[in-house]
Each structure stands twice: as structure tokens, then as C-alpha cells.
């Protein structure tokens, strides 16, 4: 890395964090300029690498990651007695940008991935409707389609944050139950209106999946009508089997368990069914012994992915901090970063596009002086909601909420440059 230019006129530093406007106007050159133009070899072609001297391989029908990316993989963690019951984490610290490759989108299944025949599968809308209706996939392809570019986050993501001691794991193996895709499909409003619903009399919709768990979720009709999508496509191709092929529910900004995969049925109801996964799970036990239920929206959240736990800074100098921010309530308005455990903050640059209920990549430059440091990020969304400190979240929710952990994440840097998860 080149010598930092933070002492140049107009660059005020804050614990080594370089101001955002410097990044934005592109005035900060972090890489060394080439010392001199390369000499043209005496005989052209003499120094060419071998891959320029013979034809490359031919075409492939479906591109695969190259050998250097063979270790960029999801990390499964399943119940040893039931291999389809568990999760597979997205390796956040190995990825850049804000989109997740379809094959690395996190998985959470309760009893495996079903092998569904799309010619047989139907979506049914029944219960308190004027006309109960079935649709096949071929029928649904005839409807107007819409896209939502957004995140899905498991309500149980980051739950090791409630632990007494900071868990020592890579960020993807701790916070990696969030992924971002473009989801395309039929606006649910069209199908609900075709069946004929009464929003006053039956404000609930019970969604059911066609997996071996027959997953259920009681959901408000108002949300499904507002921006719910029956997704058929993920990142431009049919949804992957492990993401719900041939169709899944997409509810922008809400916890993953509501976005039922392999969707087979929507039942209109005056009351919630009180399914196992909306009573005994995905509810947040508070310190007084009562539990929060039906808490669907994902809170404002951010974390640094570079650097992050398990990485090492090789030498003093300037580093690019990079991370993800998101909120279930709308767009990210601002992300601040700190290098001193939250005593001082500097605003990070947001990579575009900044979309509602979608992850946003943020960046900042930081000069490490070789001293211990604590790196953090803090997001604010367009409603003004600010990501809480860990102490504030624990004070509000107690220690046993398990779900919806969204506090500020801290990475400690020691004198050797080693980065690990810490609490401050």
C-alpha cells in the first residue's frame, strides 16, 4: 500500500479515518503511482505469460467460479440427526458489492430441500375468499411481473451477539444469514384480488410451504397487498431449489421465516393460526418473562466485512474499510465508522444504488498507525432509526431474545494487526 496522504492540506483525520468528501471527489490516491513507465522489450512478445501464447479453452453452457474461487463457499451447519435441518451461511467476508451470487445465498431449512415437479405444483388461495383458486406455474408466467432488489435476513441471524463472550468466528459464520438478490415475480395483490379478499374481516393470511416441514406463517394481508411478491425468478433465472423453486413469498424488509419457500397455499383468516414457528420460535423472550411476537421487520443494521474477524493487517498504512448496511424500514441514509470503539465517528461513503429494504455497500479509508484500535460501523435509515450499541440493545431487550440481534459490531485490532471480534 502506498503512503497515506492524510496530512495533505484539507484532509482532517479522525483517529485515522479519512473524511468522506476526500473519497467522493476522488482526490485520495491510495495506491502508489507507477515509478516509471515500463520499458518496451527489445523483442515484442518475448516476456508474454504462457496463457497469451496458446488458445484458451472453449465455451461453457453454465459458467462456474474459477479455481481461485473454489474456497468461496457456503458454510453449512446442520442438525446431526437431520441433515436438512439447519443453516448454510453466506461467506460475507469473501464477497464484495451488495449482491449475493445465487449459489451463495444463505439457506435455512427445517426439513430439507424438496424436489418439486413444476407441472404438478400449484399455488392455492383459499379460506375466507369469494372464489378459492389454484394457479400452476404456467398460469403465473402469464401475469405482469415485477422485480424487487432486496435482502432476506433470517430472524435468527447474528444471534451469537447475545452471548456473554464475543464469539470468535469469521463474520460470515456469525452474521451470514443475510443475502441480497433480485427477485422477480407476480405482485401478490393481483392474485389476492382475483380470489376476492375482505381486508377488514380477514386481516390475516396463513402461508404454507410444500416442503417436508410444511412451513407455516400467519401474515398480515395488508403487507402482502402492499409489496408482497410471488417470486418465480432469482437474479434472472428460475429460483434455485434451495431458495424455493418453483415459487416463494417475498416480503421486502421482513425476517426470512415469513418469506415462505416452495409456497403452495395462502389461506385468508380472521385469526393467526399460531403455528409452532410463530409461537415457540421466532418470538423474543424479554427479561420480564414475556415474549415479543409478530415482530417481522428487520431493524437497521450494519457491519464491517473488511477488515473483520480472522483477518490481519500486514503493516501500518492506509486500508479500505468496507461493509454492508441495511434496514427493513427503507433506505440507508447514513453509515458512520469509528476506529476508537465509538468515541468518535466519521461518515462513510455509500456505494450506489442505495435502494429501500436492500443492502448498501459502504466504504471508508483508514490509516492504521500500529496501535490497538476498535473498528465499528453504525447505520441510520431514512426513518431516522439508528443502529443501537450492544449495551443499548441488551438494556431494551434483555439477554434471551435470541432473534432480531442488530447491534453495532466491534472488531478489535491488536499491535500485531490481528483482527478479532470484541465487545466494548
Amino acid at each position: 500500500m502506498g503512503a497515506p496522504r492524510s496530512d495533505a492540506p484539507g484532509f482532517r483525520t479522525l483517529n485515522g479515518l479519512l473524511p468522506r468528501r476526500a473519497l467522493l471527489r476522488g482526490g485520495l490516491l491510495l495506491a502508489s503511482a507507477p515509478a516509471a513507465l515500463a520499458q518496451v522489450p527489445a523483442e515484442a512478445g518475448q516476456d508474454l505469460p504462457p496463457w497469451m501464447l496458446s488458445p484458451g479453452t472453449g465455451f461453457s453452457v453454465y459458467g462456474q467460479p474459477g479455481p481461485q474461487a473454489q474456497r468461496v463457499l457456503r458454510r453449512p451447519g446442520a442438525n446431526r440427526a437431520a441433515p436438512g435441518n439447519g443453516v448454510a451461511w453466506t461467506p460475507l467476508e469473501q464477497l464484495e458489492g451488495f449482491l449475493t451470487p445465487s449459489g451463495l445465498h444463505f439457506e435455512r431449512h427445517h426439513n430439507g430441500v424438496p424436489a418439486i415437479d413444476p407441472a404438478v405444483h400449484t399455488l392455492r388461495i383459499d379460506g375466507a375468499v369469494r372464489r378459492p383458486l389454484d394457479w400452476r406455474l404456467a398460469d403465473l408466467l402469464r401475469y405482469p411481473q415485477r422485480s424487487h432488489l432486496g435482502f432476506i435476513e433470517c430472524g435468527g441471524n447474528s444471534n451469537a451477539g447475545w452471548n456473554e463472550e464475543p464469539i470468535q468466528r469469521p463474520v460470515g459464520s456469525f452474521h451470514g444469514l443475510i443475502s441480497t438478490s433480485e427477485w422477480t415475480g407476480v405482485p401478490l395483490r393481483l392474485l389476492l384480488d382475483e380470489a376476492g379478499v375482505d381486508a377488514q374481516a380477514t386481516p390475516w393470511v396463513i402461508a404454507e410451504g410444500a416442503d417436508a416441514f410444511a412451513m407455516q406463517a400467519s401474515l398480515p394481508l395488508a403487507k402482502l397487498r402492499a409489496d408482497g411478491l410471488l417470486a418465480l425468478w432469482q437474479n434472472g433465472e428460475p429460483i434455485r431449489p434451495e431458495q424455493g423453486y418453483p415459487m416463494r413469498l417475498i416480503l421486502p424488509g421482513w425476517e426470512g421465516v415469513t418469506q415462505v419457500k416452495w409456497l403452495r397455499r395462502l389461506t385468508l383468516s380472521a385469526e393467526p393460526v399460531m403455528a409452532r414457528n410463530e409461537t415457540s420460535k421466532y418470538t423474543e423472550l424479554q427479561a420480564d418473562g414475556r415474549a415479543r411476537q409478530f415482530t417481522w421487520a428487520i431493524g437497521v443494521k450494519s457491519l464491517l466485512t473488511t477488515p473483520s474477524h480472522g483477518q490481519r493487517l500486514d503493516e501500518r498504512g492506509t486500508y479500505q474499510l468496507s461493509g454492508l448496511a441495511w434496514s427493513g424500514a427503507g433506505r440507508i441514509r447514513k453509515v458512520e465508522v469509528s476506529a476508537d470503539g465509538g468515541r468518535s465517528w466519521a461518515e462513510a461513503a455509500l456505494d450506489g444504488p442505495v435502494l429501500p429494504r436492500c443492502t448498501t455497500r459502504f466504504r471508508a479509508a483508514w490509516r492504521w498507525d500500529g496501535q490497538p484500535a476498535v473498528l465499528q460501523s453504525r447505520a441510520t435509515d431514512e426513518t431516522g432509526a439508528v443502529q443501537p450499541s450492544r449495551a443499548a440493545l441488551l438494556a431494551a431487550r434483555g439477554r434471551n431474545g435470541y432473534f432480531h440481534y442488530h447491534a453495532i459490531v466491534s472488531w478489535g485490532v491488536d499491535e500485531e494487526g490481528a483482527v478479532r471480534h470484541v465487545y466494548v
Partner: protein
Amino acid sequence: MSTSEIHPRAAWRAAGLALLLAGCAGAGPAPSAAPSAAAAGLAAELAPPQRGRPVPAEALARGDRHVFPDGRGLPAGRGSVAQGAALYQAQCAACHGVDGRGLTAEELVGGVGSLASAEPEKTVGSYWPHASTLFDFIRRSMPLHAPGSLKADEVYALSAWLLHANGILPADAVLDATTLAAVRMPNRAGFVAVDDPRRPPP
């Protein structure tokens, strides 16, 4: 689909493009109050094609498996605590433990009174607010290696044993649609519905 039909998505894209071009030309003459031909085409394409197929009544009844807290959805049948004890050992104990205290799967028994402590135990007895959820969940999801394999009588019996093991039903109890719906769980009032759509907005 025959080739003579127009694919809605393709037509929709074409209409959208036409609308976009019309929008670009907006800097010229003042926009007319009447919708442009392109906009009318777009609106027509957005009308959903109404491809839903009516569901026959017998198929509707067969497909209904939701069980609600008031007992709606419970089928005919009955099962006793004693029958449930044997079934539990055969179907559940390998994962939940012989006494229901958990193994590779979660604990189901005990923990009453622990929810406000530093180490709460969330079990059927201590945490689950509705007995109906037991029937609904066991019938649809359990056991993991053979979901949907238990008959209604067996699901009633397993529900009876689990409620007995948690001190909620006596040893001679028998559950059916009426008696199961009448069970009041200890933690019935333990939940606060944060975003319940039935509540009026603040």
C-alpha cells in the same frame, strides 16, 4: 403457448419502452390530457389475465390442515396419555430424549417458571401459548424422517402425553377435538403481539 399469442411480458416491455420514449419527448409540446396510445396499451397489459382455476369443494376440504387455537381444524379421533407414552418412545425419544428433556432436538418438558430467570427453558409446558399448536405441528412436521405419517388418533395421544409430562393433564386424560381445544396453557398470556394487524394503529 401458440406462437400467434402475444407474450404479456414482451408486450409489456414494448409498451414500457414506448412510454419511456414518449416521456423523453415531453420537453417539446405540452402533454395532452388524453392518455397516449402507449399508456393505454400499458394499462391494458397490466390487467391481470385471471388464470386462477376454481378449486372443487372436495379438494378444498381435503387440503385444509390448519388447526387454530379455538380448535377449528381439529379432526375426529382421540388418544390417551398412556397410548401417547408408548408412541413417544417409538417416534420421538431418539431426538427429544426419553423424558422429553432434549437431545439432538429441543427439550419439550419442564422449565415452568423459568422464563424470567437468567437461564430460561422454553418448552411446551413453560412457553407454548396454545395446545392446538401441538396437534398442528406434530401432524404436519413430525417425525422429521416421516412427516405426515401419524394418524389423528396418534397425534391426539402424543399431544396428551406431552401435556401430561408437563403437568398440564392428569395421567388418565384422553384428548379429542373438544378436550384439546379446552386446554389452557400456563403461558397463554405470555406474548405481546407487536405488529398484530387486528389492533388499531396507535
